[in-house]
């Protein structure tokens, strides 16, 4: 596009001209990760040719964000982190506009202005913008050696700054903090993990499972400081610009060469702030992943999608939910009416060889209406939380095989009154279910084959 025209585009008075000359996308997806890719694939299942573009500020083909830990550990390069084969965009006729983010969305004229000044028009828009790491405002937080850890660039920065023999303070004992700690240990870096709650993974696991993960972390000589967080980041005596230590709330100073904040992500919503799109903490979406604005959809960490356990929409920033929501958004954008069946908080973790999966409400001992089934073995632990004979939460540690059967029963709200006793047994499987229920569970894929395609039915 000519420079002169581009300048015109930026003037509000010439919006109608802009619309006329901007390349018009049938489908425009902002975000090139889990949700965006899933939506693009769903669109192409329905509409093979409608003009489709994906915009992302990151210059890479879609890669697996969770793998940045293995990347930092030196176990992987970008080419084994790609979510799809390199010809994915070409084969699916997707215009990949990578390396330049969306700067502004004009919802009334259906335009997106990119950071490089180009403008695109759209008929259907998906906001798959993801999340941004939360960094508290701290004294000294501007110093060199303070990082976050959610994308490849973060991993590169940490990799360049932190070497064998260094000591790094990881603020946050959640999934990201733990995956980072694993990578740092593999690089020969000493790790101090500071967690505000009294245990690690406090939102994902129950106390027993957290304790088993803490044992695994301590075995790798990771120092855990619980019930604390950073108050200030201090400099080195010899270099005022660089990180030299972290002062905790109790006044202790932990000398270190780097600090990484891994205390969570917030939905990335700056494109809709002040727009007609309804925003709560995240972008509010219907069961079809549609926002309050016609033809605008949202999914992933940026959106508040339906949680079938909490029976309400809420933020659940985990990968599988971004994909599930993205698929539903994509189908609906392309005209196939599909409803999001909902998901819930779910996490799996392989922490220095300790396998852990958890989903739903895992920490509800105090609720008198909940029933808890639990069993422990050597290095293993299983817990299932029931409410009105339906599974509402699960934690499996150590032996996690066939945990998916329990997850499926939870997701489909199956009454398990008749088979409670077998659910936590070590050799539990579909064979242990009552005949009629087993036959029903065994025929899931068959009914899917006979029925509709797609997630929602």
């Amino acid at each position, binding site marked *: 596009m000519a420079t002169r025209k581009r300048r015109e585009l930026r003037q509000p008075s010439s919006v109608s001209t802009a619309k006329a000359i901007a390349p018009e996308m049938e489908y425009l997806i902002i975000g090139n990760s889990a949700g965006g890719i899933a939506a693009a694939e769903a669109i192409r299942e329905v509409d093979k040719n409608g003009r489709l573009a994906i915009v992302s500020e990151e210059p890479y083909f879609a890669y697996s964000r969770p793998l940045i830990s293995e990347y930092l550990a030196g176990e992987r390069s970008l080419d084994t982190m790609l979510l799809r084969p390199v010809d994915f965009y070409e084969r699916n006729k997707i215009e990949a506009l990578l390396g330049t983010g969306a700067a502004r969305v004009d919802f009334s004229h259906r335009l997106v202005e990119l950071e490089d000044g180009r403008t695109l028009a759209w008929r259907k828009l998906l906001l798959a913008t993801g999340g941004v790491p939360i960094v508290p405002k701290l004294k000294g937080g501007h110093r060199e050696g303070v990082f976050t850890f959610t994308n490849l660039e973060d991993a590169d920065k940490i990799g360049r700054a932190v070497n064998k023999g260094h000591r790094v303070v990881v603020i946050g004992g959640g999934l990201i903090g733990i995956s980072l700690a694993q990578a740092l240990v593999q690089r020969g870096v000493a790790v101090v993990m500071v967690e505000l709650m009294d245990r690690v993974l406090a939102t994902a696991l129950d106390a027993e499972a957290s304790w088993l993960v803490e044992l695994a972390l301590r075995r790798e000589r990771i120092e855990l400081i619980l019930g604390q967080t950073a108050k200030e980041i201090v400099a080195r005596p010899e270099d005022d610009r660089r990180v030299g230590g972290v002062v905790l709330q109790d006044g202790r100073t932990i000398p270190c060469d780097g600090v990484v904040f891994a205390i969570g992500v917030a939905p990335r919503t700056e494109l809709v702030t002040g727009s007609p799109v309804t925003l709560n903490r995240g972008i509010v979406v219907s069961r079809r992943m549609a926002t309050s604005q016609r033809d605008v959809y949202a999914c992933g960490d940026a959106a508040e999608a339906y949680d079938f356990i909490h029976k309400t929409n809420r933020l659940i920033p985990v*990968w599988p939910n971004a*994909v599930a929501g993205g698929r539903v958004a994509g189908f609906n954008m392309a005209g196939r009416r599909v409803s999001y069946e909902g998901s819930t908080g779910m996490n799996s973790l392989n922490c220095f060889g300790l396998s852990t999966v958890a989903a739903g409400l895992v920490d509800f001992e105090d609720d008198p209406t909940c029933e808890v089934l639990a069993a422990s073995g050597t290095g293993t632990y299983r817990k299932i939380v029931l409410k009105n004979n339906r599974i509402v939460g699960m934690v499996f540690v150590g032996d996690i*095989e066939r945990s*998916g059967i329990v997850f499926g029963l939870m997701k489909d709200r199956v009454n398990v009154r008749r088979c409670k006793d077998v659910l936590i047994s070590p050799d539990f499987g579909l*064979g*242990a279910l009552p005949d009629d229920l*087993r036959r029903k569970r065994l025929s899931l*894929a068959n009914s*899917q084959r006979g029925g509709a*395609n797609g997630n929602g039915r």
Partner: protein
Amino acid sequence: MGCGLCEVYCALAHSTSQDLIKAFKRERPRPVARIRVERVDGLFLPMQCRHCPDSPCVNACLTGAMYKDPDSGAVTVDPYKCSGCWTCILVCPYGVITRDIGTGIVAKCDLCQGRDVPACVANCPNEALVCIEDGADGQPLPLAAAAQERAGGH
């Protein structure tokens, strides 16, 4: 009858040596069977991947390792991309994806890619396991062990 030969021949088919004795006695890491016979009160239920049309494991995979072959319909895992996060294990409603502790990644039925008939089916002495092509959604889809409920002797 619950003989478990399908488990043995599955592990063998996925071994490095392809030799029964070596595979079970010497090979490290030990080859892992991707089929498991559940034995409960006289019921023998061989369980392996259903290669679901809309596969929860593919949708949940964090790395793109789990994928569905658009031509064959088989759901398989790319060992170079799998990171062993176990998310697929959590979402599989049949519980048929397992950890391969030796390699640190997941193991699942791949319908014995490269063979005409999956090893479990070929070596089932009672012909309880069969492999059918399911074209219900307009796509051929091999599905082993369709006859498992009959195999249970019910």
